[in-house]
């Protein structure tokens, strides 16, 4: 019997969610730079507002350009739908606000982006939502941290900046034992390297600012719904399973089935919180997504070469990347991330903070800034920048040491990257 004739990943990266513009024939995705959309008549308007017909009403809620990106990301992840947001942090907040209210509880990996940690640790408690942090390798720790009021388990595919590889199927099983969804921040891996829904995740978020965009010119986020979680059977999510007064008693799980979560996230979250992505940003991110497969292949090839270069350099005390045999999650990475474990790596520089300063300031190609996933190679000292709001205990739990330098490996010729690292490391040791 024949195989299913689904379009493949590289094709979907270029085409999913879009066909040539019917009005103009434009091949590229047009930027629909408009706030609102003319209704056919009053009856058409009323039926759009009442979710009797599909279509665009107001660009805070949906926009044709942004919808192409949303559909494309859902296709690449193997999900049912996406809402794009103003930033990755907005996507995380949208997920939390859709899943729970005051009294809710989150179990999170401790090795996550500093901004996410800050939201969980310091901001959400003001709204009555508490978080318990667990080391990403402590599978039983996730299980034991779950409480009756827990509404989400959260982790990153590859931890930031410690590069712990999450045993995603194991953590998913723990979450599902408790009838709770697992949400994954897959920013570091993108769907090219890992499709978390295939490994048991229920929700995915991205900072599309990073590898999905790839160019470092636009901030954005995405929240993707896998459509597998059974909200009705769980019984813990009234936002999905009980009539919503904000939409005339609409029961999202009943009416939208597998798309209940993402429909609720858009209908309520974009309407009421409004952290939407602009159509121009969506256009920028789409330019990156079109070349995602070829870029990610080059990213991981370069990162692999840099990791092995640093691993044998005398100025380096340790190197952390799952491609290396000594990484604690090397075998797990080989199994779950066979195309590569991403292009972010960290290492310890001999000579401490001062040597680190000389190294970063000595680099010529690498740019010193607070981002990852650019086509250009980047460098930062996490303890004094991205993770500086953490206290010593939280830094230790996140695996961030004073000597740690984080690199995001770009698409330059790898011989130039190795040369730049070599000269800056020599400079760092001349103190």
């Amino acid at each position, binding site marked *: *019997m*024949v*195989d*299913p*004739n*689904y*379009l493949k990943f590289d094709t979907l990266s270029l*085409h*999913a*969610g*879009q*066909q040539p513009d019917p009005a103009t024939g434009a091949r590229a995705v047009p930027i629909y730079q408009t706030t609102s959309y003319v209704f056919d008549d009053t009856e058409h308007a009323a*039926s759009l507002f*009442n*979710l*009797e*017909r*599909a*279509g*665009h009403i107001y660009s805070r*809620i*949906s*926009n*044709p350009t*942004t*919808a*192409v990106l*949303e*559909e*494309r990301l*859902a*296709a690449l992840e*193997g*999900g*049912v*739908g*996406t*809402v*794009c947001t103003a930033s990755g942090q907005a996507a995380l907040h949208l997920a939390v606000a859709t899943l729970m209210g005051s009294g809710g509880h989150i179990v999170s990996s401790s090795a996550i982006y500093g901004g996410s940690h800050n939201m969980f640790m310091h901001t959400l408690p003001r709204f009555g939502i508490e978080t318990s942090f667990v080391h990403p390798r402590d599978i039983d720790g996730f299980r034991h941290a779950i409480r009756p009021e827990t509404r989400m388990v959260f982790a990153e595919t590859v931890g930031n900046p410690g590069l712990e590889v999450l045993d995603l199927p194991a953590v998913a099983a723990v979450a599902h034992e408790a009838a709770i969804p697992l949400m994954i921040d897959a920013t570091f891996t993108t769907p090219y390297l890992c499709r978390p829904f295939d490994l048991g995740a229920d929700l995915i978020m991205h900072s599309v600012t990073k590898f999905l965009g790839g160019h470092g010119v636009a901030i954005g986020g995405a929240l993707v719904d*896998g*459509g*597998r979680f059974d909200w*009705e059977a769980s019984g813990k999510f009234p936002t999905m399973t009980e009539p919503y007064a904000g939409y*005339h*008693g*609409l029961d999202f799980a*009943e*009416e*939208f*089935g*597998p*798309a209940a979560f*993402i429909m609720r996230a*858009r209908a309520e979250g974009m309407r009421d919180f409004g952290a939407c992505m602009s159509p121009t940003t969506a256009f920028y991110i789409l330019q990156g997504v079109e070349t995602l497969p070829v870029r990610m292949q080059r990213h991981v090839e370069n990162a692999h070469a840099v990791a092995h270069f640093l691993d044998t350099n005398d100025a380096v005390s340790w190197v952390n990347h799952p491609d290396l045999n000594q990484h604690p999650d090397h075998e797990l990475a080989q199994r779950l991330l066979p195309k590569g474990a991403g292009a972010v790596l960290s290492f310890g520089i001999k000579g401490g903070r001062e040597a680190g300063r000389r190294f970063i300031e000595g680099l010529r190609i690498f740019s010193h800034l607070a981002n990852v996933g650019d086509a250009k190679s980047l460098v930062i000292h996490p303890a004094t920048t991205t993770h500086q709001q953490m206290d010593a205990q939280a830094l230790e739990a996140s695996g961030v040491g004073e000597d740690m330098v984080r690199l995001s490996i770009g698409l330059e010729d790898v011989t130039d990257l190795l040369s730049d690292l070599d000269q800056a490391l020599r400079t760092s040791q001349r103190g």
Partner: protein
Amino acid sequence: MEFTVDGRKVFATTGGQPFTIDKPCIIFIHGAGGDHSVWVLQARYFAHHGFAVLAIDLPGHGRSDPPLLESVPDMATWLLRLMDCAGVARAILVGHSVGGLVALEATAQAPERIDSLAMLGVNFPMAVHDDLLGRTAANDHQALDLINSWAHGYSAHLGRNKVPGLWMMGGSIRLLERAPDGAVHADLQAAADYNGGLNAAAKVACSALLLLGERDRMTRPKTAQSLAEAIPNVTIVVLPNCGHMIMEEYPDEALRTLIEHLM
């Protein structure tokens, strides 16, 4: 809302409006392995425009109790019993795929109770490849992927969902995955075994609509010709570029056609 038929729970969504028997009733019937949610837009529209709507889950599907029903005539007889239990004397029937055959057969079994009939993505005979039947009998996931792939026109494989941000191919495979083991197979087998289509068509006393997708690879429009010719009062509409999943691939066109036929 829930009904009890033959001692078993039956679920139907009512399109966001209370179900009352003082309005004209439309009953929506899903296809193989589906549930009521495939009709979400159409159900909401008609429920807010003067109709009492029941988008049902067939026995053993969605939120309705098992057991699965094994033949189209059995499903049709059951549908008429559901109408009895819901206090519905007369109804408009709208069915998709094998659900369309159920609507046709129910119309033939009780022509005096059916005011209008709409069949979407329906042909006769509704042949199903033996290999596909074998794979669905074994609950092989690849069978679901094959159905999902064939059920959508090429245009849908690219996307451009009318509902912003939703990926049709993803939503449809998740819905098929939700079907209990055996449900997809039972529905496909019932469709393949049904041989009463032309006899039923001849008994249709009400106006009928055949809404077909030009690019439908599951129920090709040309294979619906004999059925169309057997129905006394039928309107045939073929949507360009559309595959088998008419309600999600072209929701506006599907709704407009239903409005023209039913209102």
